[in-house]
Every structure is written in structure tokens, then in C-alpha cells.
């Protein structure tokens, strides 16, 4: 695996450190107008440590993580399967394409009221929302990726006496992986955004719910600490998928 293509840039840390220092300074000197409650970075870091130490963070973070993982993996797998079928077989694309075109533009959160009636407030609700959020875009990027594979590879495989399922599994799908991973990386961040929004409005547990409780107690430090955690999680998901893609495709791209 060639990681030299993406070396770590030590200079990238400097703007972050400067921004944190500026934040600390502005908050301590009370430079923001209108009496805005704006705790310094050190207070947020202390609160984050307290949340972790007392177990509150784990208590709220782990359910969110579980929902995102379940919904994203299930939605991603289903999206890849349906997308592969649509990209490979014109008849499937012509059958499912119009339905998906109608459903795809609907924001995932817009399904929430309907799902609350249909399946109620349960653990399945946030998973279903993340599933919907992940399924459509991954389905589309997979179908596009499969269609974009150069047909000459298919011809070459056919002339070598290979069956159609093997061509799909061993030639077309692997060659579509770069496109599929682009979709997965984009939707990994989106899954976190959707779960937080869903937990804020409909689910009593998770990071979104913790943020809403903090809002009612005017605990700005807790809210910002939660935003930190979310930011890091989105980054980690995106990075993990990037590294997985590199591991699978770096040798031949």
C-alpha cells in the first residue's frame, strides 16, 4: 500500500492550534457582544473529560454509534446489491430506476413522522432513518460505478470463457470499487448528521438527545463538547473508509 501519496502535513496543525488559542482568548476576555454564553476551549475540554470520566459520554455515544453502524452497514449493503443489479442489468435499471428517482430526492429526515407512526419510538427507528439515508446515494453511486466500467474488460473476460456471474463478481464489481467508495465516504458523514437530527427530535437517547438536554440546561460547554465528538467521529469514519479503499485498490490504481 502506497501511503506516500497522502503524507501527513505537520503544518496543518498550526491553524488549528491558532484557532483554539484565539477561541480561548476571545472567551476569557469576553470580547463577544451581547452577552453570548461562550465558554473558553479549556472549559469545553474539561467538560469533555468529565463527560468521559462519569460515563455520560459512553452512555450516549455508544447507542448513537451502534445505530449509525447498523443503519449504514445495512443501507450500504442493500444499496450496493440493488445498485449492482441496476448497473449490470438494463432491465432492472429500467424497472427500478423510475421508483428510485422519485424516492431519492426525499430528505431522510422527512421519513421520520411516517416511520414514527409505522414502527413507533424504538431502537429500530433511528436505524431505519440511517438505512434510508445511506441506501439511495450508495445505490446510485454503485449503479454508476458498475456502468462506468469499460465494457472491453467484460468482452475480454467473455472471450476467456468466463460465466456472467463470475465476470460481475471478479471483474466488474472490483473495478467499480473506486466509485462505490466515493459514495460510502460521503454517506458515512451524512449518517452521523442524520442520526443526531433524529435523536434531537424523536429519540430520547444518544448524542442528539444529550445535546437537547444540555440546551434546556443552558450547558453550552456540554453542547460544544458533543460537537467535538461528532466532528471526530465523522472524520474517523471517512478516514477508515479511505484507508480501506487504499488497502483494496492502491496496488492497481
Amino acid at each position: 500500500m502506497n501511503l506516500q501519496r497522502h503524507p501527513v502535513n505537520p503544518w496543518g496543525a498550526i491553524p488549528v492550534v491558532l484557532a483554539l488559542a484565539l477561541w480561548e482568548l476571545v472567551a476569557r476576555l469576553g470580547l463577544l457582544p451581547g452577552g453570548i454564553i461562550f465558554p473558553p476551549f479549556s472549559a469545553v475540554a474539561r467538560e469533555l473529560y468529565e463527560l468521559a470520566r462519569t460515563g455520560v459520554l459512553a452512555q450516549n455515544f455508544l447507542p448513537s454509534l451502534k445505530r449509525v453502524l447498523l443503519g449504514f452497514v445495512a443501507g450500504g449493503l442493500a444499496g450496493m446489491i440493488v445498485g449492482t443489479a441496476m448497473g449490470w442489468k438494463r432491465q432492472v435499471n429500467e424497472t427500478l430506476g423510475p421508483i428510485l428517482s422519485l424516492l431519492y430526492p426525499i430528505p431522510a429526515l422527512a421519513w421520520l413522522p411516517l416511520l414514527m407512526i409505522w414502527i413507533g419510538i424504538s431502537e429500530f427507528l433511528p436505524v431505519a432513518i440511517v438505512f434510508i439515508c445511506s441506501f439511495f446515494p450508495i445505490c446510485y453511486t454503485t449503479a454508476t460505478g458498475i456502468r462506468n466500467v469499460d465494457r472491453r474488460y467484460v468482452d475480454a473476460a467473455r472471450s476467456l470463457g468466463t460465466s456472467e456471474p463470475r465476470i460481475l463478481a471478479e471483474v466488474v464489481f472490483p473495478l467499480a470499487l473506486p466509485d462505490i467508495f466515493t459514495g460510502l465516504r460521503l454517506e458515512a458523514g451524512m449518517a452521523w448528521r442524520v442520526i443526531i437530527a433524529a435523536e434531537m427530535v424523536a429519540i430520547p437517547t444518544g448524542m442528539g438527545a444529550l445535546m437537547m438536554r444540555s440546551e434546556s440546561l443552558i450547558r453550552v460547554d456540554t453542547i460544544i463538547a458533543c460537537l467535538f465528538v461528532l466532528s471526530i467521529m465523522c472524520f474517523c469514519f471517512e478516514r477508515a473508509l479511505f484507508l480501506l479503499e487504499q488497502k483494496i485498490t492502491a496496488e492497481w490504481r
Partner: protein
Amino acid sequence: MPTVELRGIRNFGCQGTNLEIQPNQLLVLLGPNGAGKTTILNVIAGLVQYEGGVYFDGAPVDGLPARDRKVGYVFQDLVLFPHMDVRSNIAFGLRGNGHTEHEVIARVSDLLDLLAISHLAARYPTRLSVGEKQRVAVARALAPHPSILLLDEPFNSLDSQTSLHLRAALKSLQRELGITTVFVTHDLAEAEEIADRIAIIENGVVERVGTPAEVLFSPPGPRARDYVGSSNVLGCVTSKRLGFGLAVADCGGLCLVVPQNGKEIRKVAISPRDVRVSVQRPSTDVNVFEGSIRATNRLPGSVMTHIDVDGADIVAELPHSAYESSRLSPGTPVFIELCLTKLRTSD
């Protein structure tokens, strides 16, 4: 290995194509871009729709999908699977086709040795030179023991030296395996070098089929001549045997040493590309003549130079750079050398 026959093939690229390829022969399809050469290969491989009939050993194969035709295909851009290393590329056509893993490993190993690419086995195509990719593509096509081998301008993007080497290797391999082979090119010199027979293709129709010498001595129509390059064909009145497979032929006033296969020589031909022109006298005396440039015809890639040699009009094809650097122009006295190994004779 089977006889391949195409009868009245019609589709977007073929206009009633008829062609017969003898078993174990290497047939070259020669023609300009867009003539329908690749389409003919795709028809034989079963990769495109067509009307008409394709027959292997007299049996129609039109109902057979590509994967059941037992045809090895080396595509113009080679299309090696980029996500597989060389070993996996070659093994691809064997796996899942009733071969045991032991057989697959043995066959791949044999082909790696045959094509002299064992040292590349673990490399991915992106880490191979063009010449190495060509060898891998040939090995991959041969792996499933095809009855017919199709090669679509496989040496197109190579330098002349590597191309020459690979052509020789391919010809020797084809003879060794005795596999019916169809090779597409638009280069007459390449065709002449490796072909048992040449088919001139133009507008999706086979204009002429024959041995390289037959094609050289009987050039096709005027449009085909633009790309094939009209040969210098000289009528010979007498010939004298020298032994060692050589003879002297008196061709329109030029005494030429020519290859001889025992028959009386009536015609001698040489491609304009094989006529060497120089201002200084060459180091050899064999088939070297003095003349002067009579006229020139500038083409996009070369200058067709007509040289008057004792009344005979010899055409030489020179690259622009060579023509300019030698300060040639009509009237310039020059020496020409007709390379012995490039001369073709006819009785």
C-alpha cells in the same frame, strides 16, 4: 486447429464479408483505420451482433456465446485486468472452467516460461512496460487452450525494435503451437513479416487474399494503395543462379541479387519503405545503384521520393526528417540500396 470461415457477414462494420482462414495459418487482416478489421475479429469472437454465418471446421457457431467459442483474443489496448497481478490475469480464463488448482498453477507456470515473463508474475499491469503487457496479454489469451487466436494490432504502440522482437516471438510461438491465428494491422511491413496469408480489408469487404508476395505483386485498388504503399514491381527478363538460395535477375536494366527458391524469376518487388537512399555511396556494393531524384510527393508522415535509376522509376518512402537533413530535392544525385532480405520475387 479449425478452419474458420465467414460467409456474407453484415453489420455496422462488415458489408458482406467472406473470408476463409486455413487451419494452423497466420492470416493478417490489413487495412486502414475504420476498414472493419476489428469488427471481423469481434464477429469471430462472438462479441458483436451480425448477419451471415461463422463456421469453425464447417460447423456454424453463430448460436454460441463468446465464452463458448474457444477463441483467445488479444485486444488492441490489451485490456489486462488492472486489479489482478500478472499471474491472476493469466489464470483468470482457467479458473471456474473445470480445471483443478494444480492444473491452473501448472498451466500459468508454463505460459510464464513460454513468454519469458516469470519474473513479472507478481506485478500489477500498472507496473509493466508496454512490451511486457503485450506478452502478458498473449499469455492470458493462450491460457484456456483456444482453438483460434485473434490479435488486434497488439504491437501498435511499441518502438520498432521491441515490435520486431515480439513479432518474431509471436510467429515462432504460433508455429510451435500450430494455432489458427488472425492478426490485425495497418502496416504492410509488419503484415509481410509474419503472415502466411494477407487479406486486404477495405470498407468492410475483403478486397484480396493471398500470400505476402501475391499481395505485393498485385497491389489492391487505388484507395488501398494509399495505406498499403504501392510496391516497386520490376519485370525481370533473365535470372542466373548463384547458389546459396540467391540469383541474379536483370530487372529493367538493374542487375539485382535476389532470393531464389528454384523457380524462374519473372518479377521482383520491394516496398518503398525498404528502399534506402543516401547521398554518399553505401559501404556495400550489393544491389546499390546510382540515380537522381525525379520528383517528390509529400505525405503527412513521409516523402514519397521517385528516383530515376537507368530509366527505371524506383519509389522510396523517406521520413520528413531524413529527407530534409540530407538536403534532398529533385535533381539531386543519390545512391539507392535495395535490401536483399526485403526483396520479394515471383515466377
